[in-house]
């Protein structure tokens, strides 16, 4: 069951292009945080107990304790990189990736490109009709 605030923050999250973690930041996370993000990304949405179940499967030496997991989730949520949903017994966690930024090529290049492609298409069509 997701509350009205979850839905609201989800909506806001979708609009705000700068929220969420970029793949580069993801790669630079401390090991425990990165491993949790990887699990959340692959499973999409999980409760803490389900998450701990998968953490148990990590190789020894790379396996964070439950306290470390909770600490990591707290930091990730503070950054907006993990979204905490629901309340009390129903809490689940979800990874939040940053929107892929538009190419930094100038707007004019895109409109020129778009027009060119349009022209090429049309002349191709004409040729088809003639041939």
């Amino acid at each position, binding site marked *: 069951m997701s509350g009205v605030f979850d839905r609201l923050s989800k909506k806001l999250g979708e609009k705000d292009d700068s929220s969420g973690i970029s793949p580069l930041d993801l790669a630079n996370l401390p090991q425990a945080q990165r491993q949790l993000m*990887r699990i959340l990304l692959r499973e*999409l949405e999980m409760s803490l107990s389900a998450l701990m179940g998968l953490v148990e499967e990590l190789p020894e030496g790379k396996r964070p304790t439950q306290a470390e997991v909770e600490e990591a989730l707290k930091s990730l949520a503070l950054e907006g990189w993990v979204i905490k949903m629901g309340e009390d017994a129903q809490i689940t966690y979800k990874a939040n990736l940053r929107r*892929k*930024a*538009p*190419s930094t090529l100038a707007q004019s290049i895109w409109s020129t490109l778009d027009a060119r492609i349009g022209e090429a298409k049309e002349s191709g069509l004409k040729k088809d009709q003639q041939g």
Partner: protein
Amino acid sequence: MGKIVSIHSFRGGTGKSNTTANLASQMALAGKRVGIVDTDIASPGIHVLFGLDEKLMGHTLNEYLRGEVDIHDVAFRVSDHLGDAEGRKKLAGKDLWLFPSSINGREISRILHDGYDVNLLNQGFQSMRKEFDLDYLFIDTHPGVGEETLLSMILSDILVIILRPDQQDFQGTAVTVDIARSLDIPHLRLVVNKALSRYDFSQIKATVEQTYSEEVAGVLPLTEDMVENASSDIFSLRYPDHPWSQAMRGVAENLLAIP
């Protein structure tokens, strides 16, 4: 749930798309349920090997990323469109799906211009795995280490790095291997492609393994026959006895043996 296999190379043109298509086909032939997603949105290429052109292409990843269609609408079941390609015909009845990126110029410029929701891309990967009950999801990527590349590496169970056995490729591959190691990817394999036939392949394998301290899953020869195939069919299905195909099956067996 099925494994995610990312195929990378530091340089372009090393043979990622060909390797991905052939590995995926070999696994489908062996009875596995396999998906291939083309995340090279800026310069998609793998569709050609499955005989998919602009006319035949239905919905694409681009439309999915704009929220216009479901991932099911993007799936192209290879066995439903075998055409007359001799190699691909062997995939009749097999469970292989391609999730293509658009090859329409306008669509490509549009997505590069607008960007896209990366959460949706990831949800797409996970739906492919779950809803198609895949044993393997192959991710074909853009060369170099970009954002999509990093994301697909992080998500992977198996990362395959393709390299050419020359000096130019050495430094870049070393960087990619270093990044992969720092990300704790469960399994890493190197594949050498375009090796000159006059060299001793077991020697190449040993040298590359020593250089990078990682397992080489196969050494594939440079071959004119591949160029002649003009990327219009799945080479290892069409010419199963060819040395390239034999080496390719070795790579497939290596990956299949990963628990």
